[in-house]
Structures are given as structure tokens and as C-alpha cells.
């Protein structure tokens, strides 16, 4: 256990430079770029005095180095600043919308794994048959489908034409969820309150958005699983297990798949980045009240502190997940030394 702790600490220490670099990059992008955010916000015709006042208020008239120090200083105190448009702290809308994005992303990941891994394992088993080729074609094509188009198609077919699923929002219009909002994760909240009807409604609203992400990203997992399985099934321990009289199904799925899945865990981190990106587009398509939509809203409103805040939160999120994935990998593979 102590070794695991050491490993954890080391990994965290390694992540810090990366976060630091990203934060600096964000700073650079959002400050040093051409274009004056303040005059843009004020409409371009405002008198110079007003512009200067605003700049001073936001600290934008100080030299860049000083601004950078300010920036870092605030971040250490976990202060993301105040919104330029509304009367709120930046963290307020972010914390409000974060659970929605996390829920969507998580279910999207589950969907992509749930579709991709079984298909990949099946294709490996039925190697070189028509089904194998079909699945491989699916995997390659699906990755080229724009996420938002997939969302629109699903909406069209299952929402508008078939009417089976809702096409926007996290809950239905007549559903009042505010009474038991606790964590912001509706799945948890509704279960906690014991209201199964609303729980069902929440799940129902999650289906199409999660599938959108899930289908498009399943391609990678299909390919990975299939390739890993083929590799693993050639292995000596598979032959040895068969020689001991272990039934074929168990050999393939218990001995084989488990080993094949390990490299997939390492891919999870990379896939998560794609998921987050896809989530922004999906939130836009399904009017999902998450961080992606918040970002787009505030970009339109030119609320730079919030834009910056959202991106910072995304960075932290990605780093955190990457760390988690590494830990998971160390935990499930007994060969990893820590």
C-alpha cells in the first residue's frame, strides 16, 4: 500500500508541470492574442476613457508579467475571478453546470465501451468472417461521423420520426427537479430522493446524447479490443489453459479478454479528451445545460473571465482523469511495479 501511495504522489508531482504549462498557455492565448476584448465587449464605439476604466478594473492595464503573477496568484487561491457580464463569481455558473457535463461524459464513455468492447471481442473470435469485416468497416466509418451530425441524426430518427426519446434537456419540461437537487448529478439526486419516475425521466433524456458520443467513439475501442484480443489469443497461456481442459468460452473471455483490456485502460485517458470535445458539440445539439454550452454562451457574450475559467476547469479535469487512469492501470496489472 505504501508503494501505491508513493506512486500516487510521484504521479501528482509529474502532473503539476503539465497543468502549469497549460495554464500558462491559456493565459497567453487569452491575453496576448490580437484583439482587444474590452473594446469588443463594449461594442467598439465606446469612448477611450470608458475602455481604460474597464481595463483598469479588470487589471488589464498592468504589464503582462504583473498580470501573469496576478493570474497565478488567484489560481492558487482557487479564485477564478468574476464574470465580466453578470454579477457573479466565475466559479458559480461553472460549478452549476459541471455535473451535467460529467454525467453526459461518463455515460458517453460507458456507451462507447459497452458498444466497442463486445463488438471488438466478437470480431476477434469470428476472425476473417464476414461479420469480422463488417465490424471493422463499422469501426472505421463511425469515427469519421461528425459527433454533432450523429446527434442530429439520432434526434431525427429516434426523436422526431419515431418519437421514442426526447431531444433536448436533462429532464422533461413538466418535471421539477429543483426540490431534490443535491449534488447536481441528477442520477444520484433522484435515486437519493427515491423518486423513480423522475429517475427514469433523467435516464430517458440521457439515452440519445450518450449514444451520440458512444457510437462515434466506439470505433476506437472496437479496433483496439479486436487487435489486442487477436494478439492475446495467440499467447501460450491460452493454449496451456485449453490443454488443461478449460472450456473455450472461459478461455476467451476470462483469460483472453482480461489481458486484452489492459492496454485499453491506458487509452482511456486519450479517449476522455475526445469525449470532452465531443460533449461540447453534443451539449449544443441537445440543448444540454453543461459546461460546453456555458463556454459557447460566454464566448458569444465575450465574458472572458468565464471563458478562461471554463478552460481552466477543463484542463484540471483532463489531468485528473489522466491521473486516475494511471492509477487504475497500476491497480489492475500485477506486473506494474510501483
Amino acid at each position, binding site marked *: 500500500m505504501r508503494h501505491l501511495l508513493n506512486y500516487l504522489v510521484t504521479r501528482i508531482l509529474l502532473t503539476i508541470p503539465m497543468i502549469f504549462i497549460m495554464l500558462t498557455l491559456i493565459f497567453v492565448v487569452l491575453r496576448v492574442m490580437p484583439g482587444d476584448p474590452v473594446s469588443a465587449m463594449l461594442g467598439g464605439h465606446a469612448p477611450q476613457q470608458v475602455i481604460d476604466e474597464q481595463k483598469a478594473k479588470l487589471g488589464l492595464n498592468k504589464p503582462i508579467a504583473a498580470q501573469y503573477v496576478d493570474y497565478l496568484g488567484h489560481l492558487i487561491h482557487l479564485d477564478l475571478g468574476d464574470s465580466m457580464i453578470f454579477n457573479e463569481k466565475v466559479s458559480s455558473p461553472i460549478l452549476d453546470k459541471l455535473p451535467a457535463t460529467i454525467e453526459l461524459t461518463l455515460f458517453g464513455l460507458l456507451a462507447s465501451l459497452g458498444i466497442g468492447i463486445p463488438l471488438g471481442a466478437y470480431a476477434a473470435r469470428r476472425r476473417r468472417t464476414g461479420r469480422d469485416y463488417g465490424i471493422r468497416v463499422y469501426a472505421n466509418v463511425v469515427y469519421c461521423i461528425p459527433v454533432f451530425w450523429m446527434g442530429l441524426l439520432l434526434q431525427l430518427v429516434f426523436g422526431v420520426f419515431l418519437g421514442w426519446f426526447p431531444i433536448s434537456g436533462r429532464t422533461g419540461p413538466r418535471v421539477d427537479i429543483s426540490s431534490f437537487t443535491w449534488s447536481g448529478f441528477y442520477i444520484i439526486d433522484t435515486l437519493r430522493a427515491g423518486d423513480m419516475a423522475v429517475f427514469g425521466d433523467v435516464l430517458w433524456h440521457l439515452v440519445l446524447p450518450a449514444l451520440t458520443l458512444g457510437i462515434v467513439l466506439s470505433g476506437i475501442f472496437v479496433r483496439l479490443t479486436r487487435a489486442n484480443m487477436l494478439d492475446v489469443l495467440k*499467447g*501460450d*497461456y491460452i*493454449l*496451456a*489453459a*485449453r*490443454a*488443461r*481442459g*478449460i*472450456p*473455450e468460452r*472461459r478461455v476467451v473471455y476470462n*483469460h483472453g479478454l*482480461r*489481458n486484452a483490456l489492459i492496454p485499453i485502460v491506458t487509452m482511456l485517458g486519450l479517449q476522455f479528451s475526445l469525449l470532452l470535445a465531443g460533449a461540447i458539440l453534443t451539449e449544443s445539439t441537445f440543448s444540454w445545460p453543461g459546461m460546453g454550452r456555458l463556454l459557447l454562451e460566454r464566448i458569444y457574450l465575450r465574458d472572458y473571465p468565464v471563458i478562461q475559467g471554463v478552460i481552466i476547469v477543463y484542463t484540471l479535469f483532463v489531468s485528473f482523469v489522466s491521473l486516475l487512469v494511471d492509477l487504475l492501470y497500476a491497480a489492475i*496489472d*500485477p*506486473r506494474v511495479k510501483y
Partner: protein
Amino acid sequence: MTDNQTILEVKNLSITYPITIGNVRAVQDVSFTLANGEALGLVGESGCGKSTLGLSLLDLLRPPGRVSGGQILYRGRDILGFDARELLKLRGQSISMIFQNPLTSLNPLFTVEHHFLETIHFHDPTLPKDRAREGVEKMLAELGIEAKRLKEYPHQLSGGMRQRIMIGLALIMNPDILIADEPTTSLDVIVEAGFTDLLLSLRSVYKLSIILITHNLGLVAEIADRIAVMYGGKIMEVATAEDIFAHPLHPYTQGLIDCVPNILLDQKELVTMPGSPPDLVNPPTGCRFAPRCPKVMPICRQKEPTLMEHAPAHTAACWLYQKGEA
């Protein structure tokens, strides 16, 4: 030790691998018997078909390889006719096999204990777990491995230990026959010696019949009662271990024995056999060894000799001894 009862009989077995350029005749018309309690050595160079033959005895050939003819009779019943259920029962319980590379033959994600318990569970599901554990611990004791190793993973063990665990897994259900495919090739000589001792002692404890597949003549000399020499997918000579080494009949056997460096002789050069193994897709007409044989005669290239007894309990397939139609 042997009681003259034939426990395994291979009759005219042929194995082919259909590939794009033709049919690879890996094993052709091979026949031999294994008596109860006997250790039979199957020797030959790489690619002669001995490993393929070993795999076929458990119907474990990797597709596209398949048995194209012949029978494998275990206690009088043809294994090739077994259905899936009977095959699962056969493997590990009646006939077991251990392989060359012990590290990769064990699943890296499972503990030693898990390997054993899983095997036991699938062969005897009704056995209570504590009884199973007792059996495993007893087996480990016989193998000379401490019980604490049960909770460890394969990569934490040494090569010799892993090979012993392989034997343990093969013998845990008390099979009649153990097939060992190049069991010591990846072990160093000291570990190999330990392995040999272990195998011999387990053989008497478990009343095992053994088929030892190897190209290591030293190993086979220590363990085998009888030896069969394979070349190009066919059996060239079969005799008791002493006879094979003392009076090898077939030129190939003679060549094999000569190739082993002898520390007592003042050898200036190592002996080799010129040429390379035959093309198994289009084998040469006549004897397969003819292209490389130092004692080749015209008839060797025209007709294949048959495996015939030329001395007591000593068969060979060679025109040197077979007076045939020239």
C-alpha cells in the same frame, strides 16, 4: 514399471496445414504405441513435426492445421471422434501437456492458486474448495515449492519454479499421460537437471506415462525408455533408449548422435549434417532424408522405405536394411 498394456496408440496419423501455396504435410502416416507407465521420447530437429504431433494428441491443433487421416486411440477409443465435452474431460484429466515457455504459459493476471483452483473446478465442480486447496498444497509440496507462493503472480517466480508449477497444473487431476513439449529448452542446465529429477520422481508417484518431445538427446537419454526419431514428418526409427544410442540403425539417427559434441573426444570441428529439412509442401519422392543422407543409394530416391523391425524391438525405415524391390 511398464505393464505392457498399450494406453495410447497412434495409427497412420497424418496432419496437414492447408496454406495458400499448398498443403504442408507436417505429419505423414505416423504410427506408434505408448505402453502404460512407459516414457517415450520423440526426437527430431525443429520443424520435423513432433510438436504438431504432440498438439494433435489433445486435438489442440491451431487452425488451419487439421488431422487429415488416421486415428489416435486412447484406451482403445479414438480421440478424433470425441465431442467437445469429452475433449474437455480428456484434457488435463486423462492426458496433460506442458509446454516450452513457462512464463508465457501462465496467465500473468492470475495467481498460482487461481490457476490450480480453476483447473480443479472445471474438472471436478463438486469438490469443496477446502479439499481442493489441500490437494494443491500437497502438490506444491511434492514439487518442492513453498506454500506461500500460492498467492504470487507468475512474474514473481523464477523460471524453474514456473516450470514446476506447469507440471503441477498438468498433474493435479492425476492424468494417465503427460506430454512434455520441449520442457527444458528455455531453462538453464542446472534447472534442467532439477526438472529431470522431479519428472522422474513424479512419474513413479503418479504412475505416469510420458511422451517427451525434444531435440535434446541428453534429456531423452535420461528419461525415456523408448525413443522414436522423426524426420520430415515421418518416423525414421524406434527402439529402446539403449539401443538407439548403442546401435543406431538409421543414418539420420547416427547423424543426430554424432552432432552432439563429446567432451571425451578430441574434436577439432563440430559435426553437422549438411543440407536443410525437406519441403513439406512438395516432399521429395522416395525417402525424405535421401538428399542429405551420407549413405544414400539410388533406390532411396525412388521409393520410400517402410518402418520395419530389423532387430529385436528395433524398427527403422531405411533401404540399408530393407531388402526391397530395387
